[in-house]
């Protein structure tokens, strides 16, 4: 076979619902929450759910879809390791006649970059995109910056992320325009490449500070709390006071620890993503599709909250 043959669309079900949920970086806190939400919902609905961790391996994605097909799964929910694998995922699911829903990251039916995709070709999705997250971060940073009353000449921004992870890049790149749109001035921006772990972020930011001793106040954002915590810690170690640091994280998992412990920290806010709800909603939507043939919504958003040391408890973030 040349690989281009079409298979008939999905048939009815024998009543048994089997869903595969595939996640990139399944060992990260956010995705663990999402997995938990999915499992709880699946248990409540009494359906079979198989979780698969794809790591960052695009090739494993296709293996996992093939496995799901061989296992006669009815539906696949997926967070792709990289959006470029999207068309292959769509094609594979179509070949095998399996319903496809994505969470968190968008994929396109026929383009490797969702940004180039015509809206009707975007696969139905639940969650919050990297660009949306970055926008929230930029907005919050601008708000905190204005409240701090720093002079633009003495302030710089550190953006720390693993530069070959596309969704991280999307988040970070969206933050700056949002910062400016929310009234932030033109500040010196220093991009720092890390491997997305706190120790590495700390090392790299420490070195960056060396080269920028003149800066008095720092804004730190990045791909996630790991980068921001590492960066903020490096600044604190280098002698900067917490008042001179504005760290805005994503996910809240590490920020919340420092806040709970009652320590003053330069991490002033973090965008809490309720992974649990995304997972739960995704499983419910897939169930409705399989059982009742109810169409997916094109875009369903889950709740995200920008939390601060004062608000995180009320928002329901625990750690």
């Amino acid at each position: 076979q040349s690989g281009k043959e079409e298979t008939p669309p999905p048939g009815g079900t024998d009543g048994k619902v089997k869903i595969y949920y595939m996640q990139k970086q399944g060992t990260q806190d956010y995705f663990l929450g999402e997995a938990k939400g999915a499992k709880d919902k699946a248990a409540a609905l009494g359906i079979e759910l198989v979780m698969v961790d794809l790591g960052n391996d695009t090739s494993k994605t296709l293996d996992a879809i093939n496995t799901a097909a061989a296992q006669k799964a009815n539906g696949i929910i997926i967070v792709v390791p990289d959006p470029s694998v999207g068309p292959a995922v769509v094609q594979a699911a179509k070949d095998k006649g399996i319903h496809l829903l994505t969470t968190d990251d968008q994929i396109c039916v026929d383009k490797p970059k969702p940004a180039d995709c015509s809206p009707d070709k975007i696969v139905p999705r639940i969650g919050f995109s990297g660009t949306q997250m970055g926008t929230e971060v930029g907005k919050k940073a601008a708000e905190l910056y204005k409240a701090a009353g720093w002079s633009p000449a003495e302030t710089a921004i550190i953006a720390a992320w693993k530069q070959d992870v596309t969704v991280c890049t999307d988040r970070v790149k969206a933050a700056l325009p949002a910062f400016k749109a929310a009234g932030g001035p033109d500040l010196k921006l220093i991009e720092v490449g890390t491997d997305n772990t706190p120790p590495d972020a700390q090392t790299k930011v420490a070195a960056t500070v060396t080269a920028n001793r003149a800066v008095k106040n720092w804004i730190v954002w990045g791909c996630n709390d790991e980068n921001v915590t590492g960066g903020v810690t490096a600044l604190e170690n280098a002698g900067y006071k917490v008042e001179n640091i504005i760290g805005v994280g994503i996910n809240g998992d590490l920020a919340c620890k420092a806040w709970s412990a009652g320590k003053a920290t330069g991490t002033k806010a973090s965008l809490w993503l309720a992974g649990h709800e995304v997972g739960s909603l995704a499983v419910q939507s897939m169930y409705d599709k399989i059982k009742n043939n109810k169409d997916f919504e094109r875009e369903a958003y889950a709740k995200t909250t920008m939390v601060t040391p004062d608000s995180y408890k009320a928002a329901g973030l625990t750690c």
Partner: protein
Amino acid sequence: MNRVQNLSLIGALAGVLAVFGILNDQYLSLSNLAVIGQAVTIAGLLAVVQTAVIICGGIDISVGSQAGLAAVVSSMVFAWTGDGLANGNAFAAIGVAIVVGAAGGVVNGVIIVYGRVNAIIATLAMLAAYKGIAQLISGGRAQGYLLTNDLFIFIARGSVLGVPAMIWILGIVALLVHLLLKTTDIGRNMYAIGGNAVAARLAGININKYIISVYMLVGAVAALAGIILAARSTAGHPTAGSEGLELKAITAAFLGGCAIAGGKGSIGGTLLAVTLLGALEIGLTVVGVNPFWQNVAQGALLVVAVVIQQRRTGDRAVGLPG
């Protein structure tokens, strides 16, 4: 010895298939076996050439990066020869990627032979370097879109006689390398070089040429693996091969009976080992084992498999095994 090794691998594989076959009624279905086959293709290609280089007394840790580089290069050439994203010339894309891979292999070989650098250090260094080059030329982003092309679609999804194209590629490469090793003077000389480099040199074998050639072979096949990676994932991503592929390939080679000092190993053993690892991985996923347990299980089973293998040969437990 080698037979014992292969027999215990077959035993372990049969055990894995049986256990998961009982736990899941779809596991032994033809379509799932094809999935296992596809899942092991990339690691299998790298393990096959890794076996060849380990037999020569070397090792290549940079294979994963080389595959990633080839993934990017092939997609970029495809994009350039086309409309900037897709619809390019697949043969040019594949050809350039394989030439770049072979050239990378030669660089590895030259560093090792003429630079007198230990193969582990040299290829560790090149692991970083090739990854960096792939990231640089691609800007860290996925490149091109390959699924507009029939050839790439065939590589990614086609099949012949019901067997997926990827598995055919692995089978053909493995067969060729097997024949090279077992039936040609070149292969026998490779065993001699790895077994005792001084003996080989005194026998008039041009060791340098062999070492550089085998690294070139590794580079070319790693590039082939990278092209398949790109075709499967529709686009070439610079970190495509970096998720521990080299460790998988090396693990399979050793598990399949290669000796770290060289001069020992077979393609059959390596393929068995890589299939065992793949069957295990898919099995654990199918049964829905939590990924954390999968790590523990894979590590533990690898140890158990090798221990059983070793017990069979009845070595004494003194010092470090060779």
